[in-house]
């Protein structure tokens, strides 16, 4: 489904990632762990062709298409969804307006009745007020609300590969359970895969990832199953 081969990423003057290889199949949950500044968020953004990053080597393949040099919007329309560590706020734009526009762009427009019906259903799943959809995009929202807001959009867009950069930051214990429940339910009902940046043991245990990757020194240094997370948490990053 998704393949990264020998990817090297730079900004204008600095190499941030070197020789990244990662293969994700449908149904899998991959977790990226690593010290601060190791390149986890950079990798997420590079997949989405963030304008500040330059891919100087390697390829990214998604569903047999080479998306290495695709624009961000084109990548998103193919079904890759990204939730940033700190989602930006868009002043004056309502969630409903953005989601309906995005649905139109990805080719799945919804009539107003279906939209309202789905909105009610997803709001209940996420344990947020039904009027959440009528708030401005991430404006005056707490960290946890922003993450739930991004998940609300995800539920509408039904992406195939979901990239979550520290979805747990800003979430309290109950909210982590809500988020994990929504993600597990989503995976059950959709053909999809997850790439998650997290250090949150509780969330990782709830999601039961199939793969753990240790990102260090600009590359994926080690990959393994859930036992790698336990090893990392016991030893700390410096001992790898």
């Amino acid at each position: 489904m998704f393949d990264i081969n020998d990817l090297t990423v730079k900004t204008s003057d600095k190499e941030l990632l070197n020789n990244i290889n990662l293969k994700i199949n449908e149904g899998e949950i991959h977790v990226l762990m690593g010290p601060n500044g190791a390149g986890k968020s950079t990798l997420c953004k590079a997949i989405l062709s963030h304008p500040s990053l330059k891919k100087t080597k390697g390829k990214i393949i998604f569903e047999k298409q080479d998306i290495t040099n695709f624009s961000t919007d084109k990548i998103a329309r193919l079904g890759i969804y990204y939730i940033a560590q700190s989602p930006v706020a868009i002043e004056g734009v309502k969630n409903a307006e953005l989601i309906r526009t995005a649905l139109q762009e990805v080719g799945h427009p919804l009539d107003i009745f279906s939209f309202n019906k789905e909105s009610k259903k997803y709001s209940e799943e996420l344990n947020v007020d039904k009027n959440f959809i009528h708030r401005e995009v991430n404006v005056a929202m707490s960290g946890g609300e922003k993450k739930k807001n991004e998940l609300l959009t995800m539920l509408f867009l039904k992406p195939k590969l979901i990239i979550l950069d520290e979805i747990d930051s800003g979430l309290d214990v109950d909210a982590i359970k809500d988020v994990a429940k929504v993600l597990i339910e989503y995976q059950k009902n959709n053909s999809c895969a997850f790439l998650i940046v997290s250090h949150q043991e509780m969330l990782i245990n709830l999601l039961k990832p199939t793969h753990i990757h240790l990102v260090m020194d600009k590359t994926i240094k080690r990959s393994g199953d859930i036992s790698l997370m336990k090893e990392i948490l016991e030893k700390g990053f410096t001992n790898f």
Partner: protein
Amino acid sequence: MSKEEKIIIKEKIQNINVKENLNIIEWQFPNDPFVCNIYLDDNVVFETNCLINLEKVNGQINIYSNNKSIVNISLGIVFNEENNLEIKNSLIGNEAYSKIMIKAIQKDDEKSILKTVGIINEKTKNNEFLEQIKVLNFKKQQIICLPELLVYSNEAVANHNATIKNIDVEELFYLNSKGLSNDLAKKIIKEGFLNFNK
């Protein structure tokens, strides 16, 4: 309740006397240079909360506030091509209150000038003036914002601020990552910025 009206400026110099509460729901400007003088009687409320589209406009709107009059302006301005607009509010009486809030964007790769002037006249008392200008610029689409506050009285409260914001890369990336093209993302950001009905 205020009477709702349109202002259609046709003359080179147009004078409007406001004798009762008035809410302007639409403005129409000529392409030739103009000066529009609006004189408010005592105790009158003058308000306008709307979106205006300007194209090659070159003019001046002067509002003269008398005793206990209230000015409440919330304008979203879309500049198309080159424009030069000045909005001047002179508080010539006492105990008048003025609030001017303007949000402006330039639609195409041109430059427009938006000048706002607040004047509190000498020997007036207990006037209050608040002005807030927000401008959203993007690359070659620019608005030159010239806010000015002239306070000649010692017994007044006056406050003004101007913010110039650029559409930033992270906002565009965010909307792109939802599947929106660059053009659509910019349109949404601009429309959101101009939205007063929050």
